[in-house]
């Protein structure tokens, strides 16, 4: 049999053994991003201050000095939120890309972001307090995916994943249209700016209590995904092969979608719409460690976590006024992605 040695093949052969180094490098990256995130910001905080604040957390005492207060009440939750949201979105994105066997898929594909956006916009429109707005967003995200899922079950098409994607596109577009309608009906001096900013996404208003609520939900969604990594590989071969190899493809897909939706809806509820993380980070991870989910999922989660913390630090330190993070994730992610493509390292079959 012939052997076609190209540089790409040699690179592929290296990937498997490179993985532990990649994971290590990413862990270091995350730690650096966290350190940067904790020390950079409008309020002057040093590493010493960060250490002191950590000490207070350890001892259980409250913050004593102003910089400790900033770290524990404001910057700390924000950095943790960046880690959680980044990891969650990247995980959801990478799983969906495998599930739908499509590189253009992001966590929004089934409409969860549009649905969450609709819920939040409704909450803002009705002048509800923040907690209710978040609850509406979460419920909206879940409801939208449920609707798409039931549409897919009802249609019973030959290709279930295609029906899901199309259903998601349609329902997501519908939700988007209703959002636009609400924007027009909203008070331009009062609600419209709030709606606009929510849709641009921000980690600024994430509180410790928000995290305390969302973290268990995200973990509840991530755990099955991490445990089922190997089987998700098989699922990515397509329904027929997956079934032939012994998997209940329909049930597995349902579980994966439910988990990914839970993750995405809960983070979107507290931060608004942050795009690009769920699309680009999976790609870059795949380029680094290949498509095998056993390696890919942890890699994507680490990369997403560090990336979002980094970008958020940038968003709040570029000036006095925050740059909405959704804008930055696109502006930072897109050129990097283009550069990787140009270098020729495809994470996809060509």
């Amino acid at each position: 049999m012939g052997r076609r040695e190209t540089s790409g093949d040699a690179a592929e052969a290296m990937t498997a053994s490179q993985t532990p180094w990649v994971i290590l490098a990413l862990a270091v990256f995350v730690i650096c991003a966290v350190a940067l995130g904790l020390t950079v910001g409008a309020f002057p905080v040093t590493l010493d201050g960060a250490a002191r604040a950590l000490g207070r957390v350890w001892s259980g005492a409250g913050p004593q000095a102003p910089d400790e207060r900033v770290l524990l009440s404001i910057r700390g939750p924000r950095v943790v939120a960046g880690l959680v949201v980044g990891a969650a979105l990247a995980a959801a994105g990478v799983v969906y890309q495998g599930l739908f066997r499509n590189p253009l898929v992001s966590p929004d594909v089934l409409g969860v972001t549009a649905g969450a956006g609709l819920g939040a916009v409704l909450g803002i429109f009705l002048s509800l307090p923040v907690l209710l707005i978040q609850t509406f967003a979460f419920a909206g995200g879940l409801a939208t995916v449920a609707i798409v899922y039931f549409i897919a079950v009802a249609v019973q098409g030959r290709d279930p994943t295609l029906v899901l994607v199309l259903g998601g596109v349609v329902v997501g577009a519908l939700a988007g249209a209703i959002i636009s309608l609400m924007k027009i009906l909203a008070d331009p001096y009062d609600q419209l700016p709030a709606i606009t900013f929510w849709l641009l996404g921000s980690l600024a208003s994430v509180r410790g209590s928000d995290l305390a609520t969302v973290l268990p939900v995200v973990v509840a969604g991530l755990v099955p995904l991490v445990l089922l990594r190997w089987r998700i590989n098989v699922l990515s071969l397509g329904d027929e092969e997956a079934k032939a190899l012994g998997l209940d493809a329909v049930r597995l897909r349902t579980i994966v979608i439910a988990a990914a939706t839970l993750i995405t809806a809960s983070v979107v509820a507290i931060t608004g719409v942050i795009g690009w993380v769920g699309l680009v980070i999976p790609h870059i991870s795949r380029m680094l460690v290949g498509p095998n989910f056993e390696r890919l999922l942890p890699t994507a989660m680490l990369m997403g976590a560090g990336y979002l913390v980094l970008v958020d630090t940038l968003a709040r330190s570029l000036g006095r006024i925050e740059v909405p993070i959704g804008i930055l994730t696109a502006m930072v992610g897109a050129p990097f992605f283009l550069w990787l493509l140009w270098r020729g390292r495809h994470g996809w079959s060509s």
Partner: protein
Amino acid sequence: MPRIDRRRLIAGVSAIALWPRPAQAQRLMTDSAGRTVTLPSSIQRIFAAGGPAAVVVYALRPDAMVGWPRALRDEERPFIAPAQRDLPEVGLLTGRGDTANVEIVLKMKPDLILDFGSVRPTFASLADSVQQRTGISYALVDGRFEATATSMRLLGKMLEVPERGEALARFTEDLFKRLDAALAAVPEQKRPRVYLARGPDGLETGLRGSINTEIIERAGGRNVADAQDQRRGIANVSPEQLLLWNPDAIITWDRNFHAMVTAAPAPAWQSLEAVQQKRVYLAPTAPFGWIDRPPSINRLIGLAWLSNLFHGDRFAFDIRHEARSFYKLFYHVDVGDSDLETLIAWADGKPPGMPPKR
């Protein structure tokens, strides 16, 4: 007595009878953007292009209003004169949301479309475009605080109510004069640093110099939200930045935010001076906002209220008396006792039930 020449009489009468008269007496006036506007002699119907204009038309010519940009909420109705309470909702024409179908505007058959606010070239050209499309005269009047008196007089003339315009202008001038006299002795550094909290989480604000926050400087405060670049308008801030600014006072009209920050302040707010000193002020919004929403002449009562909050020792403000007379002068209502109590309680941080019902 000289004999009246019958021929001359007939000629004279015919001349008078047949003399070509203009179909309808028209006036030409110049609006604040320098545009020449053709006005019919008698204006019976006015379409307000946006929220600010609606307040102005209601104040000057309530009889000529064809509708409100947005339907009144239940809690706003008691503060609007009965005749105008049930006017239809006609949508906005300019501003950030353009909902008034031009056809609806045409159906309303207004004699004049009025806009009150920015007179920058963008809006002037928008005015020209709408005027061309509809054939209805469109007047653009300056809505900045400083221009209020001038604009009131201009509008008084334009809308054929010069006495009302004069009254409103005089009220404004008196207020500004009283205020300036009180603030004359207060140097810049002694003026309180103020943050305007918008949105349910309070992290949205208006930058210094924006129309949403000019009331702060006018009332003798200093807006902390200074982007230090050319930007005006609305922006989001991070809680850290807020901590750094540490404003002396916080003003808002969002009831949810106010409830949160006074009853159970989130960590980001707890350490702020203004929160700890309980200097978080909630502005009423019935029938229109006292400090914004919309940014129009409704802010004048809020201006007096804020000036007293910021400089109580120099600027007196008897809320009971001032609210009553302002609402009578501008909004044509005699505020009942219980409604007045509602307003006073609201301005004291106890608003009527939330969320507001439409």
